[in-house]
């Protein structure tokens, strides 16, 4: 099928008329998902889908169209729509296609074992995960969700500028949500594992972690409002870093929507803090030899020793800003034009694990869950106020669970307030890796 995608994008790129640039981006994905519930397969989904997106540029204008109809007629119509859409778009110096460049293949993002994995093993893994989660603790009364999922993807790109590239990638993951009940109160706990192949997934630790995170929240009550040190758990830290990510995109900067806009070269975080995006880090799910418009990926240090170094660019933002692309063009799918985003974003890990951070802080709140990030955290204004639940700790030891709490602060104060980054960095299914984070002081609002 790779050959087929290559052929489609090359044919479309070859249709370019004089003065016009044409880029075609095609995807083919096969996916499986298995949900287990009470010892049975509750749902199995198996899919194969493909599509192509066509970008046409001429005289600084852009037209885009996509189609899931890969017949000759479907492709012809798609190109015609993209050309017609170009006519009403405004001129913009960013409407250019990248020049071809070299990109090195990236070993380790495609695992042939996954491409060959039998459906029976996927079903068995989901059932095993469900059984283990249920058995992990007597207080677990239900396994709300036990899932296995995988994706085998192929991608091809070609442009009339001479960009050519294709690669394959695999992902496999499993996740459990345990429900624990005691004295009429229910609590949920989530855990996830991700790898390049099913063979490397570990349902045992996922089950134990999901159960533990539910059980330890039993009896949670609303604490009094205080200002105390806060440790964000490795699994919630990505939501926090995710809010920063928007402001680090050159697109947001150019559109006046980034609170980092005028802060290049300035201190934005605590001393020693390093924020990195690495598109070639195979441990992260966002690894790829080239980005969504065919530009080679790289490692970019965004914040070094607390000082803002640069922004993330694709070809459009680079052309507008007189910079060069950092290889950060990304698309959700063939249905969208390339935007700017990170591949694998993370805060460089520190020395201490989570227990070490709790010991360092002495007393405070360990946040195990955040909610309302998409509404309560505003990357433009820097206001940050989210609902959290977790456990108080004293003398470095976990104590009583708390819920219906909000923590609020200014985003830049949070960044500057990071006292330590944990050593427990891990990527799972998202493009942001998580480590435990210790923030010096935050307002924790309860009753």
């Amino acid at each position: 099928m790779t050959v087929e995608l290559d052929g489609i994008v090359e044919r479309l790129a070859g249709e370019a008329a004089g003065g016009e640039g044409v880029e075609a981006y095609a995807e083919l994905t096969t996916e499986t998902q298995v949900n287990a519930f009470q010892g049975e397969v509750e749902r199995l989904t198996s899919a194969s889908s493909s599509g192509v997106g066509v970008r046409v540029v001429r005289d600084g204008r852009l037209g885009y169209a996509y189609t899931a109809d890969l017949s000759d007629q479907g492709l012809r119509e798609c190109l015609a729509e993209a050309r017609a859409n170009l006519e009403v778009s405004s001129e913009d110096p960013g409407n250019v296609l990248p020049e071809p460049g070299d990109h090195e293949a990236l070993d380790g993002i495609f695992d042939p074992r996954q491409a060959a994995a039998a459906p029976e093993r996927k079903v068995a893994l989901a059932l095993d995960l469900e059984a283990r989660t249920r058995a992990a603790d007597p207080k677990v009364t239900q396994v709300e969700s036990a899932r296995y999922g995988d994706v085998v993807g192929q991608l091809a790109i070609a442009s009339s500028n001479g960009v050519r590239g294709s690669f394959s990638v695999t992902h496999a993951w499993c996740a459990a949500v345990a429900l624990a009940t005691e004295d009429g109160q229910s609590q949920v706990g989530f855990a996830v594992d991700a790898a390049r192949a099913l063979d490397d997934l570990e349902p045992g630790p996922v089950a134990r972690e999901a159960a533990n995170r539910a059980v330890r929240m039993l009896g949670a009550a609303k604490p009094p409002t205080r200002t105390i040190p806060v440790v964000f758990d490795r699994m919630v830290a990505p939501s926090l870093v995710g809010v920063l990510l928007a402001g680090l995109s050159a697109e947001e900067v150019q559109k006046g929507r980034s609170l980092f806009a005028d802060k290049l070269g300035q201190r934005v975080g605590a001393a020693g803090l390093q924020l990195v995006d690495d598109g070639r880090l195979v441990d992260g799910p966002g690894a790829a030899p080239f980005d969504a418009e065919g530009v080679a990926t790289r490692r970019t240090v965004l914040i070094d020793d607390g000082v803002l170094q640069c922004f993330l660019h694709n070809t459009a933002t680079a052309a507008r800003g007189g910079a060069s692309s950092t290889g950060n063009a990304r698309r959700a799918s063939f249905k969208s034009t390339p935007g700017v985003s990170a591949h694998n974003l993370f805060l460089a890990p520190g020395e201490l694990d989570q227990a070490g951070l709790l010991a360092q802080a002495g007393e405070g709140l360990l946040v195990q869950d955040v909610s309302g990030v998409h509404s309560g955290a505003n990357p433009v204004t820097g206001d940050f106020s989210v609902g959290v639940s977790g456990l108080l700790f004293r003398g470095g030891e976990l104590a009583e669970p708390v819920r219906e709490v909000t923590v609020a602060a200014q985003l830049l104060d949070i960044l500057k307030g990071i006292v330590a980054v944990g050593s427990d960095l891990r990527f799972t299914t998202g493009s942001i890796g998580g480590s435990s984070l210790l923030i010096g002081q935050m307002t924790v609002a309860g009753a």
Partner: protein
Amino acid sequence: MLEDAVVRKVLGAALATGGEWAEVYVEDRLSHNIRLEDRRVEELVTGRDRGAGVRVVRGTASAYAYTNRLDVEALLEAARVAAAALREAPQQEVRDLRRREPEVRHPVAVDPAGVQRTTLAELVRRADEAARGFDPAVAQVTAGYGDVRQQVQVANSEGFSTLEERVRTRFVVQVVAARDGVVQTGFDGPGRSQGFELLDEFPPELVARNAAGRAVAMLASRPAPAGEMPVVIASGNGGVLFHESSGHGMEADLIAKEASVYHGKQGRRIGVERFNGVDDATVEGAWGSYAFDDEGTPAQRTVLFENGVCTDYLTDLIRARQLGLRASGNGRRQSYADVPIPRMTNTYVLAGDDDPEEIIRQTPRGLYAKSLGGGQVNPVTGEFVFGVVEGYLIENGEVTTPVRGANLVGDGPSVIAAADAIGNDFEVKEGICGKEGQGVPVGNGAPTMRIARMTVGGTGGPA
């Protein structure tokens, strides 16, 4: 769309290994989206998406396979893949497919597909101009228009089929306002199950001024206080809160898993006596409406709370059968690539008797949540968090200082039990609701409501 003969053949293959029933869902979607940002028409995107999914069901177990090739071979292969996941039961027959006729329609006066591209470009430019003209503090404007024509065919081996064409149109404006180093955003985004006539009711200038007004009003804000206080929620916004904090818990998949705070609460008094809430997919032309859900069940109106008593849950076919409930027509999916699950449509808190202005006058001190952002809920506990994107203090029965960064924290049952004033006004907010990775259009409506006590999270210190 597929011919009945092809559909019957695919359903037959799907049932070959012992499913109780099987279903074919076919979708063909044509969309146009135009977006203006930074004074430029950034892009106009035409999208053509189509595909089919075959589902085989036995009890609560299901297997689903989809493809975006619509030839018989690809469909039969999908049916075989789905069937292979279920075994060990006697084979069922495919019954004659009786075509269900729609009981409600959502008429389209002006077909969006016929609208000129230049007209679309003009719409977003007009919105840009109106927003910038509203106040010199307006620094950035994003305006978007989108329409979709979705043709949906459903055929079920138990003997029915449906065919529906759904047209939806939406216009959205987001404004960033800045003054003296303070930056605030405002949003408005009306949408309907209508055609291009949406723009007659909501011209770009109106939507732009609403969004700009919200952003500019918040420039004078100070950080919101933190702590417990009475909260008056402006009309429309209480619907969003109701949707998130109670509606999700009444979706029958969560009920069946006993993973909802509303499990076992049917017939029990939860809210104040005057509290009435419904989910209604039949509202003509509303954003969350349709004629049939994505399993071919006719659209319905379901009462969720009547006089404060928990009444009905929202079901899809699998959950209705499992729980012995009526199929409420709430089986929805984002696209052919997704399995249907119980979802809300237009979720409304019905109007009460109180004068909205009087509600504020009789609140000595509290928060007026004029506009809520998105929210999140844990349906097991009913706990939620909501961002207040436009909020004001209420002091001595008057709306006073704007406050920013406020979050509402609480749980669904407590909120409807503490709703001590329900206004006689009513408004609807449109949005996209996400669940299990699937986004579907939903409308949320409510009158002005006062919640006697609620936790407010803010950075302004204790209230």
